[in-house]
């Protein structure tokens, strides 16, 4: 266990005894990464915030079953991702993403704007065909700049497996976007 894991384990021990400050500190330590994952799962900030709060409550309800000898983060993020995937399926999401409305405008010609919208749609569709875990991994790695080790620690899988998912996702996305990207470059 790393020193971070040891700190988490000590906090979990206090949370089990009802220590509010320990719970607060546990939330502080993990909330930003939790929000990043939640945002990638649900696509908008408000749903992401609801999911983060919900996941921490779920974790508190299950805290007695947590094996204190193991790292807290993968256990917690498993709760978060499972809840997020369930929410994504059951809830009518407020928006696919928080893309500013003026992304496609800004002096672009209508043709170019239409092409960009086409590329965006194709990319979303291509990502949607990836396995759910791979979707999350590729977004955290490519967009948010997480390293494979950071993604691995959060999801409780090996670094090498994360890299393999990135490799597979890139191959699938390049194949899906290839014709459009060549067209865009011409």
């Amino acid at each position, binding site marked *: 266990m790393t020193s971070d894991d040891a700190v988490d384990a000590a906090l979990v021990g206090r949370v089990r005894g009802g220590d509010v400050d320990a*719970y607060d500190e546990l939330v502080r330590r993990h909330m930003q990464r939790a*929000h990043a994952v939640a945002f990638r799962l649900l696509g908008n900030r408000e749903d992401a*915030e609801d999911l983060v709060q919900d996941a921490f409550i779920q974790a508190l309800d299950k805290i007695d079953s947590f094996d204190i000898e193991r790292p807290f983060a993968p256990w917690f993020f498993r709760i978060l991702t499972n809840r997020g995937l369930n929410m994504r399926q059951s809830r009518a999401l407020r928006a696919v993403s928080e893309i500013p409305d003026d992304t496609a405008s800004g002096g672009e010609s209508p043709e170019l704007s239409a092409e960009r919208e086409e590329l965006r749609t194709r990319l979303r569709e291509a990502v949607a065909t990836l396995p759910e875990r791979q979707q999350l991994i590729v977004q955290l790695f490519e967009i948010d700049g997480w390293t494979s080790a950071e993604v691995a620690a959060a999801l409780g899988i090996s670094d090498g497996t994360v890299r393999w998912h990135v490799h597979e996702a890139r191959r699938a996305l390049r194949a899906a976007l290839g014709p459009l990207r060549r067209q865009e470059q011409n």
Partner: protein
Amino acid sequence: MTDEREIEIEPGPDPDLRAALIDAFGEQPADVDWAALRARARSAALFRLRARSRVAPWWEQARPWARRILPLGALAAAAALALAMLTPRPSPGTATLASAVTAGTGADPIADAVALPDANGTLSVSVPVDDDWLWNATAAAHAAEGR
């Protein structure tokens, strides 16, 4: 069953793909109020945390200790039993029965049976503690009466 594999080398950046993904999915929101989110999480958990911090009944408090205390108790009982078995008992023939108080008064027939006046007429005897002491003493008393 999974067909996941492992790759050793960290993939390098792909700026084109990154730009396209950001265009499609957006960046992480920069204006999240972390203090407010933290406060929300805290207040949502308060009821549960207070329920956890109530004084537990004695059996719940004792549960963490039971695993240690029960073997220690068993060990102590075994040690006490072993000590009792190993402690030497008084050997036969050394016990003294002071029956002078009751002997001859009729209150204690056994004491009467075994109590014989010594040369000084004192009614106190030493009784060997073995299986035949009572029989021998009674027989001696009868023999003395018959004399």
